[in-house]
């Protein structure tokens, strides 16, 4: 469905494309936002939503394509140019300086405080003290402040990048009210969210991105939530399914148990049991607390509530050292967090061998052997072995994973280990994960690529707003069933 003929779109993009180095973020985006509508921008993780918003707000420059506002081609070379063109954005992360007060932040951007106050009052945020330091304010209030600030710019198009993700329900309602008011004044809103319920309720139309391309432009009420999910997924194309599960090993004892873990407002009472020989998948949309959950499990942060048990004994880690010492190891979300980029592959792989002072006085006798083993098992390309930072992304990830092969472990916490990795390497990594489980390790695997869960996992749990909301056997889990659950929709509702 396109905009009705005769209506000139407020904003339209034609074939907008953007790459970062080798990574293509946007291939070809066509977006038409009519005046006076709330328009949803949808897509799975990594589909390119945030990149598009950053282009439209002058943060990034498109490599190719055209952006038109009210029929005029515009060059959004700076954020100021975007504001001048009538486009204002509330980004995923608050764009406020933590060490300044609210008032100072507003003055810095030359925004009328009175106007901001008016909008805040409408969103029930009148109590905000403009003399308070940003760092002392709660995140939801900052989201509202960001929104009020954007509104004070009186944009003809207001862009909201996952503004409701960090908001409790009552505050989200205030945002919806303001969105509706903005529409009633003849302005438009571009609304990004992972919550399809909000799209159904609030949005007049929706544009769906997949893999950097516009794949649909529809009226949500006409296609329904399932139609939106389908558009986001498209036809599911698997690469070589090299990591097909081997015959299920008998599931062993409970190696890791989480009992009602809570951390801030990010993780709210997560419990699960992870058995020897098992790969437990974790599916979630972005920002559902998975980052924090892994941090807590890996000993990088203490939980506020609940308990972690390793083989039945409580683990109260003060640092990752305590977790590693008990055999709980992490492959973190960003491989650059775990890599020693300037050191050799050997030093990278051998790193955990020196965790005790008594091992400091020589190089471990079996280091060479263990390192060679890991290189062999993961088929790490060692042509650039002198500097791990010069390896390809896939090989870097193998090095990060291989480190734990040299050191030994019992529970492997894998956070999105195949993000941005080619199909073949993916298959190798998943093959290894299955092998490790077959050898008796327990693996907790979070992946943003839902299609891969049935390939590697035995069970899958779904995390939504910091709680486990669903569990499915991995064999029968589909992208659709997982995505549905990950949006906080119960499966019966869709069926």
């Amino acid at each position, binding site marked *: 469905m396109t905009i009705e003929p005769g209506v000139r779109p407020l904003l339209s993009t034609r074939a907008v494309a953007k790459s970062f*180095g080798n990574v293509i973020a946007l291939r070809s985006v066509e977006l038409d936002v009519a005046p006076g509508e709330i328009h949803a921008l949808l897509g799975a993780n990594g589909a390119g939503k945030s990149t598009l918003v950053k282009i439209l707000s002058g943060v990034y420059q498109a490599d190719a394509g055209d952006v038109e506002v009210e029929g005029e081609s515009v060059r959004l070379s700076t954020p100021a140019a975007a504001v001048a063109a009538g486009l204002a954005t509330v980004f995923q992360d608050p764009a406020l300086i933590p060490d300044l007060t609210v008032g100072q932040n507003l003055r810095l951007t030359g925004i009328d405080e009175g106007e901001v106050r008016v909008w805040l009052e409408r969103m029930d945020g009148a109590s905000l003290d403009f003399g308070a330091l940003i760092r002392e304010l709660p995140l939801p209030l900052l989201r509202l402040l960001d929104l009020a600030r954007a509104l004070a710019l009186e944009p003809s198009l207001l862009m909201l990048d996952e503004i409701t993700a960090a908001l409790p329900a009552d505050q989200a309602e205030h945002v919806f009210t303001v969105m509706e008011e903005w529409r009633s004044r003849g302005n438009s809103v571009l609304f990004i969210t992972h919550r399809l319920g909000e799209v159904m309720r609030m949005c007049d139309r929706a544009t769906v991105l997949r893999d950097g391309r516009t794949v649909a432009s529809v009226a949500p009420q006409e296609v329904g939530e399932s139609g939106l999910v389908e558009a986001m997924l498209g036809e599911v194309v698997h690469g070589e399914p090299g990591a097909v599960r081997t015959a299920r090993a008998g599931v062993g004892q409970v190696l890791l148990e989480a009992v009602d873990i809570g951390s801030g407002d990010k993780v709210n009472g997560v419990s699960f049991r992870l058995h020897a020989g098992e790969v437990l998948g974790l599916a979630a949309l972005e920002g559902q607390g998975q980052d924090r959950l892994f941090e807590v499990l890996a000993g990088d942060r203490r939980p506020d509530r609940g308990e972690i048990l390793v083989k039945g004994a409580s683990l109260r880690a003060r640092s990752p050292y305590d977790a*590693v010492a008990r055999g709980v190891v992490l492959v973190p979300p960003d491989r650059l967090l775990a890599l020693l980029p300037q050191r050799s592959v050997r030093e990278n792989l051998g790193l955990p061998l020196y965790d005790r002072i008594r091992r400091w006085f020589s190089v471990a006798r079996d280091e060479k052997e263990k390192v060679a083993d890991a290189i062999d098992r993961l088929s790490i390309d060692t042509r650039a072995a002198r500097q791990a930072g010069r390896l390809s992304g896939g090989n870097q990830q193998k090095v990060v994973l291989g480190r734990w092969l040299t050191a030994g472990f019992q529970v492997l916490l894998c956070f999105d280990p195949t993000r941005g990795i080619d199909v073949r390497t993916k298959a190798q990594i998943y093959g290894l994960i299955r092998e490790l489980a077959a050898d008796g390790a327990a693996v907790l695997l979070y992946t943003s690529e839902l299609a891969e869960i049935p390939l590697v996992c035995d069970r899958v749990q779904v995390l939504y707003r910091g709680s486990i909301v669903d569990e499915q056997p991995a064999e029968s889990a589909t992208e659709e069933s997982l995505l549905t659950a990950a949006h906080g929709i119960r499966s019966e509702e869709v069926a």
Partner: protein
Amino acid sequence: MTISNAPMIEMEVLPDSKWRTALRDHPLLVLGIVLIALVIATAIIEPRYLGVSGLRNTVLIAAPLGIMAAAQTILMLTGGIDLSVGMIATAAAYVAGNQSPNGAAIAIVLGLLVGVVAGSVNGVGVGLFRVNPLIMTLAMSAILLGLFTALSFTVLQGSTTVAQFIKTIGGGSFLGNRIPYNALVWAAVSVLIIYGLRRTGLGRLLYAVGDNPIAVRLAGIRIWQVQIAAYAIAGLLAALAGILLAGRTGAVDLQLAVNFLLPSVAAAVIGGTSIFGGIGSYSGTILGALILGVLTTMLTFLDAGQAIQQIVYGGIVLGLAWLYARVTGTS
């Protein structure tokens, strides 16, 4: 099985001059050539330099500097720095001088102890209390100066000349006056440090902490332990350098090694150790210390005073830091 993989993080592509390629692939060779060129230049200025005493004097100057630069190298590898090396060396020498009447052994042990204690305190501050290394060691330097100024009027009143044994190892030579004893000490220290950095777990960790502390932490290593060890070793080395220096001058005062701070950083930087951590070697630092030793001699022959020397050191550090940044493509 091999998989073809284009390197993800490419070096910044610069038009490669021969020099740049050479410096990147064989940094020690290039430094060696620079050293020889400097020796020749000095010999042209003053032909007697190539005689026995000329070269000996260069080594005599370079040895304590090289040992102090070892302290600096170790800390720079971890991404830290020690601004208190000069003052720790001075304090250790002062104690060694004061204790000299009790015999050289006690004097040396107590002097080294001062270094280990001061270094450990630095390490605790940086490792456990997360104080920025610049602040921690700058404060340590000020505290030591104040402390020893006060003590010199009270407890440490007395001997300011050092025991004969210390004078011998710090300033004496053997083999017909050709080889200074402090060069022997330096050689022993060098072997230990080069071996330690390459072939021990602690050596691996020093590089790793400087390269990516988050990764080291996630690998289950307690970084504070590594940092305390590094700063304690640095303190010990600075103290040793101070005692050798005291032996060379024969007497101690509270200004003894203060001017060595910049050269100690300079020697490490010239040798290719990155102030951002993770990259470098002690072999490079040795050449750096020798280069500075020859340079000092040359400037002396040219009758340039302390002021000129400081300017030259500063200029060299800046120039080389720039050069290495260009060569390695890091900023």
